[in-house]
C-alpha cells in the first residue's frame, strides 16, 4: 500500500521534473509565472519549489529570472555513459571530421529520440541543428535509423507504429516504409537521411555495437545537400563505427 510519505515524495519529484522540463533548449531565464504556465502547476507551488531548488543550486536566480543551475551541470557532466562514450569516441570523431571536413555527431537512443552526447564541428557553414544534450526524433535522423535498425525488432515496431512526426516533406511517416528501410540498414550497417529532418541537410550514420551486438550509440557525418558525397563518406563512417565497436568490446574485457 502507498503511504502518505510515498505519495508525497512521488509528487515532489513529479513537480520538480515539471519545473526542470519547462526550460527548453534555447531558453534563458524564465520568470515564475512563465514557469508555472509551462509546468502546468499553480504559481504558488512553483514559487515554493523554485525557492528550494535555488537554495540547492539546482536552479540559479538572477533578479526575477530563474535558470537551470550549475549543480545540474555538475551532475550532468558526471553521468558515466555519455562521458565514457565521448572520451572513447573523440579521437575517432576528430579524425573523421578532419578527413570529411564535415560535422561529426555521436548520439544514443532514448525513447523515440536520439540524444546527442558529442559533436565535433566541421567547416561547412550549416546552421547547427544539434547540440550536446539535445534531442531529435529517431525516425527522422540517420543516427536514429542506425540505432533502431540494430535494436530489438519490437522496439523499432513500437516506435514505427507510435506515430511518426513529420518534420519536412521528406520525413518518413509511414510505419511500413520505416521498417523496410531499417531492414536495409541492418544489412549494410549504414543509415542515410536526406532532408528528412531539416531542409538542405543530409546525414550518414552507422551504429556502434556493444556486447551481444546491441547498439550502444551511433556516429554520423552531416553536411549540406550540395556538398554531400554520400558514397565516400558512408565507408568512412562505417569504418569509424567498427573501430569504436571494437574499442568498446576491448574496454569491457579489461
Amino acid at each position, binding site marked *: 500500500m502507498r503511504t502518505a510519505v510515498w505519495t508525497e515524495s512521488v509528487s515532489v519529484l513529479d513537480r520538480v521534473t515539471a519545473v526542470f522540463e519547462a*526550460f527548453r533548449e534555447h531558453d534563458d531565464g524564465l520568470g515564475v509565472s512563465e514557469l508555472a504556465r509551462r509546468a502546468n502547476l499553480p504559481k504558488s507551488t512553483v514559487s515554493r519549489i523554485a525557492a528550494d531548488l535555488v537554495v540547492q543550486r*539546482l536552479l540559479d536566480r538572477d533578479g526575477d529570472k530563474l535558470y537551470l543551475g550549475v549543480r*545540474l551541470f555538475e551532475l550532468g*557532466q558526471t553521468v*558515466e555513459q555519455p562521458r565514457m562514450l565521448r572520451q572513447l569516441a573523440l579521437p575517432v570523431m576528430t579524425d573523421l571530421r578532419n578527413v570529411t571536413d564535415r560535422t561529426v555527431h555521436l548520439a544514443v537512443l532514448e525513447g523515440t529520440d536520439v*540524444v546527442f552526447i558529442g559533436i565535433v564541428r566541421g567547416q561547412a557553414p550549416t546552421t547547427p541543428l544539434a547540440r550536446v*544534450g539535445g534531442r531529435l526524433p529517431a525516425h527522422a535522423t540517420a543516427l536514429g535509423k542506425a540505432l533502431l535498425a540494430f535494436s530489438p525488432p519490437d522496439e523499432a515496431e513500437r516506435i514505427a507504429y507510435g506515430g511518426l512526426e513529420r518534420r519536412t516533406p521528406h520525413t518518413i511517416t509511414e510505419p511500413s516504409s520505416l521498417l523496410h528501410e531499417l531492414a536495409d540498414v541492418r544489412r549494410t550497417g549504414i543509415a542515410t537521411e536526406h532532408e528528412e529532418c531539416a531542409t538542405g541537410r543530409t546525414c550518414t550514420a552507422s551504429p556502434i555495437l556493444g556486447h551481444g551486438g546491441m547498439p550502444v550509440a551511433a556516429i554520423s557525418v552531416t553536411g549540406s545537400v550540395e556538398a554531400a558525397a554520400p558514397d565516400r563518406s558512408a565507408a568512412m563512417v562505417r569504418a569509424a563505427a567498427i573501430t569504436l565497436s571494437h574499442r568498446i568490446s576491448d574496454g569491457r574485457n579489461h
Partner: protein
Amino acid sequence: MTSLAEWNTSPARSSEPVSVLGRIIAILDAVKESGGSVTITELAARTDMPKSTVSRLVAELIGQRYLERTDEGVTLGLRLFELGARASLPRRLLSAAAPVIRNLRDVTGERVGLWVQQGTDMVSIAAVAGRLPMLPTRAGMRSPALTTASGKAYLAFCADQGVVNRVSAPLFPEAADHFRDELSHVRAAVVAMDMEVSYPGILAVASPVLTADRVVLGAISVAGPSGAMDPERVAPLVRAAGKTVTRRLTAA
C-alpha cells in the same frame, strides 16, 4: 501526512536531510560521489537514511531517468546529462569562451580551464590539456576555491561577502587577514596565482570573467609545471583572455 510546511523547511545542515527534495538530492549526490555504480545498501549507509526510504526514492528516480539501473546497482541517468547541458551559466560562458580558450591554449601550450563557483569550490566547465595532461580538471570536477588561482580570481571580484566568508571560514585569524590582503592584490592586478598550493608541482594563473555591470561569473585559468611555466609571462595573456571573454559575453 507530510504537510506542505515541509516545503518551507530550509535544507538540513545535519547529516540527515529532512525534506523530500533534500533526500532526493542527498541520493543524487551520493551516487555522484561514488564515481560509478552504487547499491541501495551503500546508498542508505552514505545518506544515513532507512533502506526502505532509499529504495522507494531510487525506484522513483529510475522511473524518471535521473538514475539508471546497472549490473552493480544504480548510476546517474541520462536525464541529468540532458538537463545539465541546458544549464544556463555554463552554456553562456562556454559559448563566449570557447575560441578564447583554444587561443590561450595555443599561445601558452599549457592547460586552460574555465570555472564557475559552487559552494566553497570551483567547478570546471571546460578543460583543455596542455603539457600537463593529467590534472583533476575535467569538466564537472571541483577544486577548492580557497587555494586555487581560479577561486581567488573569482572571490576577489565576488560582491557577496557571505561567499567569501564561507570559503575562508577554515582559516585562523592571521591567515584570514593574509587572505583578504591577497584578494585585494588580485583585484588590483586582475590576476590571481596559485604557486603549488593546491597541487604540488603545478602553478596556475587565473583572471575573472565579468558581466557588463561587473558581476563576476567565473574565471579562466592556465596551469603548467612549476619551474617550466613562467607565471609572470603568462599573467598578461590570462588577463587579456578574461577581458576578451567578458567582452564577448557582453556582445552576445
